[in-house]
């Protein structure tokens, strides 16, 4: 399980705002994620596909990934403290 601060991505520009380690939450990722890759602890995406960009990036950089998290970009806000259970594909807010 990974706990950290959520960064909800609504536009590729959002990757440039990341200055501290975060858990990315996005509908799908974008090549600009490499700008902040050193600060990405985990990735959560709404879309789920073995060849989507997030899946490729997660494999290339060895970053934990949960795909298919429906409405994750609506349920969480940037700055929320969250925990991601990679094996069970679950995400929840942490106090």
């Amino acid at each position, binding site marked *: 399980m990974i706990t950290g601060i959520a960064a909800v991505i609504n536009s*590729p520009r959002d990757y440039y705002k990341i200055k501290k380690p975060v858990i990315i939450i996005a509908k799908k990722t*974008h*090549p*600009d994620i490499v700008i902040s890759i050193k600060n990405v602890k985990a990735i959560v995406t709404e879309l789920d*596909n*073995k*060849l*989507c*960009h997030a*899946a*490729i990036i997660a*494999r*290339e950089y*060895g970053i934990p990934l949960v795909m298919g998290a429906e409405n994750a970009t609506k349920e969480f806000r940037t700055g929320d403290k969250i925990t991601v259970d990679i094996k069970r594909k679950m995400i929840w807010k942490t106090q």
Partner: protein
Amino acid sequence: MEDPIIDLLACTYRLDVAGVEKNLKILWSEYQKIIHQKSNWKNINRARAILYFIGYIYPEWITVQSLERRIRFIKPPLTLNAFLVTVDRNDQRILKKYKNNEKFKKLSRFYKIVKSVKNKVANGTYLDENTFNEQYEKLKPKDHF
């Protein structure tokens, strides 16, 4: 002249990796040409079709299905996930098991070519989407629905 989308599919069925690469390049060039020159509503929708095809349908559906079907023929056997992780991480420990396996090497080349499209950035955006979006909005008829 044969449509490169059709030829790309035919090359995928044959696993003609050079043909896949050639047709992806042709489609990318056509897309770039349309969005960077004076265009019209018909052409910009051709560009939209190419963008959707090479950016989504081809890699995320057709390629995944093609890999899933063919991975079963690789010996020693490995799952599609294991194949993708091995190639993406360039895991030499596993790759050396398949050093002389032509099917594995061909499938790996095919995947890397398709992956290069998913990582392609032009003019600062994925698959030059900003340029496409700007052109599309300019050309969209006011009564389009």
